[in-house]
Each structure stands twice: as structure tokens, then as C-alpha cells.
């Protein structure tokens, strides 16, 4: 009897305590915790709006500092401006670009590659979900995504592959072509390098589709429009040596009449203070920089620390000496408070990062027409003189090819990597190196080769 009583008491206590423990079973649902700042990929693109915000995300990635924030152009110029600039920065990877001795572990080079494909993947996510987009937006959406993808492929192939006019572009290796969005990691993720001509063809296809699908240019646009695509195509065809198409595409931009040269050269580089400024009438396409989004890497490297830059790239007097005496563009090169000569083109840390502007299109049309002996849109002299007049220079009614190329240097200096890319397409020497030197081609990042054994390294790395 006593035993039984104890047993009972024991049982009650035991069950009570066990109950407390078992209450925890209810916590299992507490294991399904979802993130706050991110959403699951499977839920990310479900509506028309989702596609549009993914497209905005593509611009966001394109504006990263190593890409169209400026890096993709600054790095190209570092390989080719030794005679006119003095690199005094502390980033060793950049110093090595100026020495034309890039290690295959260079972090800047890797970022160009990685960020480029991040844009491509964003664009691919948009393109794979076009069916969700409202009919009214479908063409524009496809056009913008293909514009960004084509732009990136063009710049990647220019930097990581041999020049189009160097040997056989159908044999020379370009970069891998990826046209579908990433969902899983499997063996298909290891893509080989396509040839230079294949990548050019992809870029042309994307940009041509973009030009046909995008809405016409309108003042105040900051997303890509028809003219943006035409402008990049004009640049691409010039690089490729297809002057007929270069002239046509340049003309396509100019004849819209939407874009105007600023009356003063300096107006193209507005600096009312450290604030965002909308595109000027001359900007055809620029990555927008505000104090919230975007980075202006031109400012980072070219601007004096007076203007929030690192002041890494100092302009040599020799460069200023190459301008004609009355050239007003020389006003964009001044000593900072410490007496060091910098370009003032990028003084606004929240200034937009230029990709292409009208002056370049005039010069492309002039050069292409000159080479072809045609006058698509206008004569080479007239186009050239538009640029010269704005710079306060007398007309040159009998321009030579050298005159046009020199004008490009003074008009577009440090803006689009032209010191390298023009040297390559014109087969000019680059600081003592032949235009086809492997040292003027970026290495495929070693890290990438380790992750994808199908990639073949460039010669010299």
C-alpha cells in the first residue's frame, strides 16, 4: 500500500517534469526561419514588377566601380598612358597595369570579369522571364537587358581577348558566352571561351536587337534607349574595322536630334558641388551616380583628394603640351591645392560615370566616312569641326586621319579607355609595346581557371 502510494507520487512528478521537456516538441516549426533582407530565388521573379526590378538590378551591377562605374575604362587606359600620366597610387594591381605586367592574380582584373558576368546573369534572368512582362513593356525590357549584356560582352572581349584585327578572330579566344540565368551549379557551369568573333557576334546580336526593340531616345533618359544601343554599336564596329556600319550607327544617334553638344566643353563635366547631376544633353548613355547608389571610379583614381579622389593618376605636362594653343579643353587640367596636375573631368564624386557621349559619335562618323571616302550624314570635315569649334579651335577643312585621331585624344582623353583601344585598332605602339603584345591583354583570372578547368589562359600568363 505504501509502496503503491510512493509509486503514484513518483509518477505524478515524473510526468510533470517530462511534460515540461516535451513542450519543446512544439518548437520544431521554429526551425523554418526565413531571411529578412533577402527572398528566396524561387519567389524572386513571379510578376511583371519582379522582372523590372531585376532589370534595375542589372544597371546596379553595371554601375559597380570595376565596371561602368569607371574601372573598365580606367584600367584600359592605365595600360596605355604611361607617356602622359604618372601613376602614383598605392594599389599594386594598378601600378602593375601601368607597367604592363599584370599578375594573373590581379584583383581588379578579376572584378571586371566577375562583375561583368553578374550583369550578364541579371540580364539573363530578365530575358528568361520576358513572358511575365506586360505586352507594352516587353520590347523595351528585352532591349534594355540585351543592351547591357551586349555592352558587357563587347568590353570583356576587348580586354580579355586579342584585338579583332590581330590575327584570326575566329581562332583567337574571347570569353565564355552564357545566355541563361543561373539556378544550379553543375558541370554545365564550366563554359569554355568562345572565339573573339563569336563574342563580337553575340554583342552585335544583342545590341542590334536592343536598337530595334528599345524606344527612341528622349531628353532626360537615363535608362538605355535606341540611341544608346546605336552608339555602342558604332563604337563596336569602329573597333572591329567595319566602317560602313560604324558610320551608319553613329549617324543613327546624331540624326535623332535629341542630343546636343554642350556649348562649353566643361559643361559636360558639371561640378556644382558633391551632388548628383542629371545627364547633359550630350550624354548618350551614362551610369547614374548619386549619394545613394553607384560609384564614380573615374573620380576615385583621377580626381585630387581635394575632390574626394585618391589622386592616383597625375597628368604630365607633356600631355598638355600636345594641345593646340587655343584649345579650351586644356581648362579641364589644373593643379590642385597641392600643386599637382590633375584632370578636372571627374571632380564630382557624385557625377555620372560617362559611357558614351555625342562628341564621340561625331568623331566616329568622321573617321568612318574618312576611311570610306563617304559622307554618311555629313562630311568628315564638318563633323570634326563641330568638335573643334566647341573647343575654340579654328576649322580644319582638310583633315587627315591623323587629325581625326588626334582630335579623339584631346576630346575623349581618359573617358573610355580609348588610349588602349584606339591604339589596338590602329595598330599603334603602346608605350613601346606592339599593339598585339600579349601584355596588353588581361589575364584570365587564375581563380577562374582553378574553378573552371575548361578555360585556357592567355599567352604570357
Amino acid at each position, binding site marked *: 500500500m505504501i509502496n503503491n502510494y510512493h509509486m503514484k507520487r513518483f509518477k505524478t512528478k*515524473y510526468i510533470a*517534469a517530462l511534460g515540461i*521537456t516535451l513542450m*519543446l516538441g512544439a518548437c*520544431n516549426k*521554429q*526551425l523554418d*526561419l*526565413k*531571411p*529578412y*533582407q*533577402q527572398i*528566396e530565388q*524561387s519567389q*524572386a*521573379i513571379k510578376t511583371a514588377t*519582379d522582372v523590372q*526590378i*531585376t*532589370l*534595375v*538590378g542589372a*544597371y*546596379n551591377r553595371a554601375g559597380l566601380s570595376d565596371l561602368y562605374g569607371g574601372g573598365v575604362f580606367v584600367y584600359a587606359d592605365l595600360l596605355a598612358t604611361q607617356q602622359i600620366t604618372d*601613376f*602614383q597610387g*598605392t594599389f*599594386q594591381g594598378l*601600378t*602593375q597595369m*601601368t*607597367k604592363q*605586367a599584370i599578375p594573373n592574380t590581379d584583383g581588379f582584373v578579376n572584378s571586371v570579369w*566577375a562583375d561583368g*558576368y*553578374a550583369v*550578364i*546573369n*541579371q540580364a539573363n534572368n530578365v530575358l528568361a522571364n520576358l513572358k511575365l512582362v506586360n505586352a507594352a513593356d516587353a520590347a523595351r525590357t528585352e532591349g534594355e537587358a540585351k543592351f547591357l549584356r551586349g555592352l558587357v560582352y563587347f568590353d570583356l572581349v576587348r580586354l580579355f581577348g586579342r584585338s579583332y584585327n590581330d590575327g584570326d578572330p575566329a581562332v583567337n579566344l574571347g570569353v*565564355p558566352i552564357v545566355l541563361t*540565368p*543561373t*539556378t544550379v*551549379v553543375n558541370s554545365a*557551369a*564550366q563554359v569554355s571561351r568562345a572565339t573573339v568573333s563569336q563574342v563580337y557576334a553575340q554583342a552585335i546580336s544583342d545590341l542590334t536587337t536592343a536598337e530595334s526593340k528599345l524606344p527612341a531616345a528622349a531628353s532626360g533618359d*537615363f535608362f538605355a534607349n535606341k540611341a544608346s544601343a546605336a552608339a555602342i554599336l558604332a563604337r563596336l564596329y569602329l573597333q572591329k574595322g567595319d566602317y560602313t556600319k560604324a558610320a551608319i550607327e553613329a549617324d543613327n544617334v546624331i540624326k535623332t536630334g535629341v542630343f546636343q553638344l554642350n556649348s562649353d566643353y566643361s559643361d559636360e563635366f558639371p561640378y556644382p558641388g558633391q551632388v548628383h547631376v542629371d545627364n547633359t544633353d550630350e550624354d548618350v548613355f551614362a551610369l547614374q551616380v*548619386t549619394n545613394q*547608389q*553607384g560609384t564614380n571610379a573615374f573620380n576615385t583614381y583621377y580626381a*585630387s*583628394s581635394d575632390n*574626394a579622389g585618391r*589622386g592616383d593618376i597625375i597628368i604630365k605636362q607633356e600631355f598638355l603640351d600636345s594641345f593646340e594653343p587655343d584649345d579650351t579643353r586644356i581648362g579641364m587640367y589644373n593643379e590642385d591645392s*597641392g600643386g599637382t596636375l590633375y584632370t578636372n573631368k571627374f571632380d564630382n564624386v557624385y557625377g555620372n560615370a560617362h559611357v558614351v557621349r555625342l562628341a564621340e559619335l561625331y568623331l566616329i562618323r568622321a573617321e568612318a566616312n574618312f576611311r570610306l571616302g563617304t559622307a554618311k550624314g555629313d562630311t568628315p570635315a564638318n563633323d570634326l569641326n563641330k568638335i573643334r569649334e566647341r573647343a575654340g579651335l579654328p576649322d580644319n577643312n582638310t583633315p587627315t586621319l591623323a587629325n581625326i585621331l588626334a582630335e579623339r585624344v584631346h576630346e575623349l582623353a581618359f573617358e573610355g579607355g580609348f588610349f588602349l583601344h584606339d591604339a589596338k585598332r590602329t595598330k599603334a*605602339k603602346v608605350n613601346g609595346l606592339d599593339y598585339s603584345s600579349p601584355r596588353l591583354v588581361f589575364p584570365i583570372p587564375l581563380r*577562374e581557371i*582553378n*574553378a573552371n578547368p575548361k578555360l585556357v589562359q592567355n599567352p604570357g600568363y
Partner: protein
Amino acid sequence: MKKTLLTLFLLLSCASIVFAQNKVITGKVTDQKDGSPLPGVSVTVKGSPSIGGQTTISGTYSITVPATAKTLVFKYIGYKEANVTISGATADVQLESDPKQLSEVVVVGYGTQKRSSLTGSIATVTAKEIEGTPVTSIEQAIQGKAAGVFIQSNNGKLGQGIKISVRGTSSVSAGTQPLVVVDGIIINSTDISSTSAATDPLADINFNDVESVQILKDAAASAIYGARASNGVILITTKKGKAGTAKINFSAQYGNSKPSRHRKFLNTKQFLQIEERAGVGAATQDYLNQDPNDPIYGSLQEALDDYKGIVERRFTRLSAGSTNWTANDVDWEKQAYQNAPQQQYDLNLSGGSDKTTYFISGQALDQKGLVIGNAFKRYSGRLNLTTKMSTNFEVGMNVSFVHTFNDRLGNDNLFSTPMQIVALSPITPVIDPRTGLISGTPPGQSSNYPLYYNPLISIGNAYFHTNVYRTLGNVFAQWQILKKLSFRSEFGIDQTNQNEDSYYGSLTARDTGTPNGSGENSNTSVVQFTVNNYFTYKDVFAHDHTLDVTAGSSYQYYHFMFNDIQGMQFPSDAYKQIASAAVKSGGSSQQAEYSFVSYFARANYAFKGKYLLSLSARDDASSRFGTNNRYGFFPAGSVGWILSEESFLKDVTYLSNLKLKASYGLTGNADIGNYASLGLFSGDAGYNGLAGQRFFQIANPNLKWERTAQVDVGVDFGFFNNRLSGSFEYYRKNTRDLLLQVNIPQTLGIGSQTQNLGKLYNQGFELELSSDNLVGKFKWTTSFNAAYNKNVVTYLNGQVLGTNDLNRVIEGQQIGVFYGREFAGADPANGDALYYLNTKNSDGTVNRGKTNDFNAASDVVLGNPTPKYTGGITNTFNFKGFDLSFTWQGAFGNKIYNGGGQYMSSNASNGYDNQTLDQLNYWNKPGDITNVPEPRLFYANGTNASSRYLSDGSYVRLKTLTFGYTIPKLLLSKLGIDRARLFMNAYNLVLITKYKGWDPEVNADYQATNINLGVDFYSAPQPRTIVFGVNIGL
């Protein structure tokens, strides 16, 4: 009935009923350390343990003993036994505490265990070994005191990240830090600094509150913590009150820190010499390399003249515009340090009755860092309370409140961090004579003068304050359900509120790029709660069988909340809060959660007190893992055999203890991103004011925990009545299913995926020895620990991981192995930097040819960042009132990479940074044999990451030294003081190393990860600290 009578008889005898043939002895038993009375001490007659009694609450006793009794034996847990010869009717005794006995009972996961019956591997550090160490956090205090536990601070800044490795590093991408448990509750030990430089979450613990630290090393000890035990478990137990009169303890200490070491840089004359030579070198290269068809220079002389002009104009600029370049000779490194006083005050109250005990403590600590602008303060309070509500029901709480304040500095990679001041030129004056202001201060020349932003300008014009308020505590109830069965329920909370407030004034514009001031303010809140419920069953049956079973469950939930606001354009530097910023330039809010639901059990069985068996298991489920792999089971088993209890060894008098033990078990590591298994898009990809989303993370629904299988074999021994004791252990930890950030082709639009890929092992030996060398009036004890660990990554699917200059993860090598080009010195012919080719020849041999083409050389293994051997030795001396104790700590077999070498040791080939003294040995003319290539301004001649910047990192240092004097009680009693001790504590007093940099205990804070190890980058040296203090007991 007979038994009751006997008990009554014994009780009566305690009540000192006098029999004729007996005598009464009275006296008082006190603690030798502080003279406080010891209640409950057993006092018996030697040879007749049944005759005797216990001391009262005031430490007094009165016992009746046979007239023939000669010696009394005094025994008390935690104290050494005392034998006192009876002479007269009184016998006052002082008992000496015995640290070995203190660790007799060991805190284990969800319970305690007698050390003698332990089969797992547990290292113990007691309060006495860490009290009063003049450091900031508990890890620093236990450094060098536990075998196989390697502790290293990132740098000498206060309250900064500290790496703890228990038996090596078991993970490549997931966490490598041990789990930290305070009074039974897992606490948050993850860094919550909002910058890339980690702060130390354990700096919120007042380690003078700590009674003991147990480090669970093998699977037998740690597997009860399951999925989070692979990196070991640190159990911290705080002090509890003891029944007896109230004790008050007060201590105060005051002292000063200095940098442990200096690095030598060029003076003005040397600087001018090397920079001029660099101009010559660059001119020569320019001339030689120019395009002959389109030459810039007509002759070499033209190039030399051009460069001479460039260099000299730069000298003038750096000399504050003066052409007298030798007017100044500034040692800028000195400018980075400040007078660094520190003071600390501790007050403890403890005591209690037989029902309720309490421990109340408070601490105020105020330390200045040795680097300018760095300070740390801590104010903490604690209440530990236990009360018995009835004979079988006990409740209590252990709660601490802490406020820490950290006046922080920028990370090691910022121009504003004080140590980067060494890059400034000796020819630059501290005060610009043109303005009378510190060089580089606007409105004086500041854009390109001095060479870089001058960190001195930040002092007074910028701050970065971190205030942490942390509540750490638990409430518990323990119910003795039956005599052998108890149930314990614990609810623990760890709540941290952190505010980081920074402002960078207008004068710091060159550093921040914002001319009118910029500021940032962020709040981080971490709340973690834990519920533990478990049963403990203890039984002895059939006389020889002892069983001790623990089983229960645990639920843990963690919630992180963060918000941040940034602003710029302030009206003036008088306004420093974001409220005044005209532009709110950034802001963010974030949250994250994770949870664990766990069941655990352990059974310890002993047969005849000498055959030991222990089994444990934990089942863990975590929100962090993929839906396909949510539950993990972690079992462990161990056996022990106490040989010294065997009859065949019982007669070996010199042998007091001999135990063999072995264990095997599985543990896990779940310390990865909270949502690492999910494929994610992130909504942070806006453009020009329009919102956007971007692909952020690739999914892995199969993701699960890393698994470590660990085997441990060891022997515990004691000789000569345990005067010499110790243990020796061998272990091997095989880790597989590594949670790895695997590099994937970036053509996927993303660079890595968390996968369970890879295997590694850690294998090693540990030796602990403890010896009472001299006993008696002059006492000398030595404790020694040494450990060897070998870490090898065995499988990574052929990948090479790593992001910084040289640290890599490669199959067949240690995690973070230095891997890169092997530097081969300067070419005697032309001064070019050379590298060994190290390419494979067709016959399989290595081509040891040299090349000046960095890209042509192959990467090779250059050394290890983690020491092979670590250890410490502590000697303690006591004589009369004096005590002296010192701990040497060392690490051997590792290398250190000077990440700043490319700037400071670049043979002036990477700009105008001031150079280390050794660069003077540069190549100057053909035929020179040297390791320093020709200086060539901006030619990066030899400045690529290579073995050039690696050096031996082995060191031995006198980590702590304590010298004290306890004032004789006679002198104090009149003042009403029980005890007073004067002391000096020193930290890092002596450093012996071949390392040429500041301090071999280093890992640059901005880049420190599991892989990035052993890197020095303008990292502040460790402090050398000496404090003086007093400890008073009432």
C-alpha cells in the same frame, strides 16, 4: 533503532559531553590566504576518524578526544589536509587552499563530475590563475595556461578580435571558435562589430567573477554539445557564495602600457638617399625600355635629369615646401603611441546561510590603449544567488550587467589608423611651419601633404565610440524528485545592445573624401535565449556499480537586429550627430535569426571505482541547414581504467594515480551563415533612386553540418602523493563534409557556394605536468603544458582557396598555408627582383632557375601561418608573505607575412613611403649580392607578394608576472582588516623572437579569417603592461 542511537551518540559527542578519560580541544580554523574563518571543516583524531567534529560558522570548534590522542587531522574540500600535534587545550589552524583539489569537481556539459572519474579530455584554469591579469578579456588571461588551447589577439588595440583554437582549426569556411557556455547557458560569442575589424564579445565578461574555466577538448567531453562542439567548448563558471560570515573583498590596481616592440625606419639622411637612388633606377628603366622609334628621352642623362627634378620637387613638397630637406628628422612611429595608463577596481561581497548563498560583485576598469586614440572601459555588476525553498527544491539566478565602452580606431588598412603613420616621411615636420598646425591640417596644405593623410589629425577631430550594454544571466530551479533523481530547468538570456557612434570632422576630409564632416550611428541588438531541461539520476547499486545518467532537451533561439544611419554635410564640427547632417547619405536595417532544438543524454558508469565507461549523445536540429538534412546525431563513448586502484599497484607507494583513458565520438560544426542553404535574391540593387533586386546566393538544399570524428587516448598520472602529476594525450580529429565556400565559375554571376565539400584532420599530442617542487615554508610549484598539432587539408576536390596575398587552402597542406612565388633576391647583374621558377621539368624535377618575370614563376608552399608547437610554463613561489608567479608562453614553427612589406620594405619601388631600415642594403651596382633589389621609383621591383615578406614567427614571451606581499595579520587586525596584499602584475614583460616586425602575435584585423592567418599589416603591437595594486579583505 540501533542506528538512530548511534547517530544520537555521535551528535552528543559533537556537543562535547565530557567523559573523564577524555580531554577537550578548542580552536579556530581559518583560511591561510585571507584569514577568514572556515566553517564545516572536519576535525578528527588521527587514526580514529570517527572521533571528531566540525567547525562552526565562525570557524571555531570544540571537540572531545581521548587523552591518548596525539594528532588532529583537519580536512576541508578545496584545501590541503593539515595534521596538527596536540599540545595543550587549544589548536588554531590555518588551512592552505589546494588548487588541485579545487579542480576535483569538474564542470561538464549539463552537470559536474569528479575529476578522478573523468574519461574525457578537459583542461581547467582556475580563478587564481587569472585574477588581476592586466588585460581586457578572459581569453588573454588564460593564454598559455591550457594545453592545446592556442589563443592569439589580432593586434594590440583594446577589445579587438581574438582567435581561440582548441586542438587546431577544424574548418575552412565555417566558424572555428569554440562554443562558449557561461553557467550552463550558451552565450553569443560571435563578433558584432559593424566594421571589418572584429571586436571581442567576451570582453563583456568580468573575468574576476570567474571561478573556473573548463575547456572541453575531446568528443567524450564535448559531444553533448553536438552540432556545435567540433571546435571545442569553453565552460565558464562564475563564483558562488559560500555559507559562512559575509566576506568583502576589494582590490585596486593602476599601471601603464607601452608597445612591446618597435620597428626601425629610415631617418632623413637615409630616406633622401634611397629615394634619390630610386629616381636613378626608374630613369634608367624608362630610358632602356622606351620605344626606340618614338623615344621620350634622347639620352640617359635626360631621363636622369627628369627624374632628379621629379624626386627633388617631391622632397620639397614633403618638407613642407622647404628646400632644406634635412631640416627635420622625425621618427613618426613614436607619434603613433600615447601614454597608456590603466586602472581597475573590484569589489566583491559573498556569504550566506545554509539555505541561501550570494555572490555580489562590481568592477570598474579603465584602460587606455598604447596607440593614440584607443581606450576601453568596463563597468560590470553581478549577482549570483541560490536559495533552498525546501529540502528538495532549490532556485537561483546568476545575472550580470555590463557596460563596456570602446574608443575604437580604424582598421589596420586605413590611412587613419595610427600605425600607418610610419609611412610618412622623416623629412616631414610634425607641425607644418607654414600654418603652425599639425602637418596636413586644413586650411594648410592637405591634399598631397604629407605623403598620406596624417592620422594625428584624427585625434580630436574624429571618433568611433562603441558602447555595449549586455545582460547575461539565467534563472534555474532544481528539484530533487527522489533521492537519486533530480530535475533541473534553466532559462538563460544573453542580451546585447551595442551602439556604434562615429564622426569624422571637416579637417579629416582627405581621409573621408567628404569636406564637411561625415558621421555614422548604428545600433545592434542581439537577443539569445535558451531553455534547458534535464534529469540527473545517480545511483550506486550492488556496492560496486556507480551510475550517473543525465538526459534532457535544449531549445535556443537567436535574434539579431541592426540599424544604421550615415550622414554628411554638417553645419560645423560642433555638430556631430546625424540629426544635423544635411545629407543622410545612407541607412540600413537588418535582422537575422537562427534556432536549435536539441535532445541530449549521457551515462557514466563505474565499476569498483576503477573501470569507467561513459556514453553520450545529442540530437541537434538547426534552422541553418537545408531542408533535406535538418537533424544530426552526435554520439560519443569513452572508457577509463584507474590502474592505481588495482591491487597489483596499490602497494607502489610512489604512485598515487594512474589512469588510462580512451574516447571516440562525433561532433559537428554548424557555424555558417544563417541562411546558407537557400538560393536568394537581395533587394539592395537600386539604381538612380529606383529600387532593384539582384541574384545574391545560390541554393544548396542538401547543406548539412560538418562532422568531426575524434579519437583521444590518454594517461593521467600522479606520483609521490600527487606532488608530481600530469597527463599525456594523443588525439586525431577527422573532419569531413566541410562547410566550404567553394569557388565556382564567376560566369555564373556569383563567385561561391556553400557546399559540404572537403576533408581535413588535426592530430596532436598534449602534455600537462604539475609539480610541487618545494613544500614547507618556501613553496615552489611548476605547471607546464605543451601541445603539438598538425593540421592537414586532405581533400578539396583539387581547389585552391584564398583571397589575400599568400594564405591559401590546398590539399595536403595546413589551412591558410603561405603559398606563392619564392623570392630569389636581386639579380647581381642588374638589380632586378628575381623569383625561383619552381616549374616542373619534363623529367618531373623542379626547375630552380630564376626569373625576373613574376608571372613565369610558379606558386609553391612557403610556410605555415599556425604554430606547430605551443605551450606555457608557470612557476609559483611562496615564502612567508611573498608570492611570485610567472608564466612563459610560446609558439613555434610558424611564419608571419608582412602585408605592408610591399610599401614599407619595397626598396623604394612603390612610391615614397618611408622604408624599413633593412632596405638600405639595396642593390646599387652590378656585382652586388643582396636580397633587396634596385630601388626604382614606382617600378614595383620585387614588391609583389612573395616569400620576400615572410619571416619566422616563433616566439617566447613572459606573458604574465605577479609579485605580491601579504601583510601579516598582526599588523592589520587593529585596522579591522582581515587580509591585505600588495602586488605588481606585469603582462608581456619580455619577448624573445626573431621576428623583425612589431609583434609576432598578430593577424591584421581587417582581413582576419579562418584562412587569412599570420598577416601583419601596420598592426599595433601587443602592450607591455605593468600595474601595481592592493587587495583588501574584510
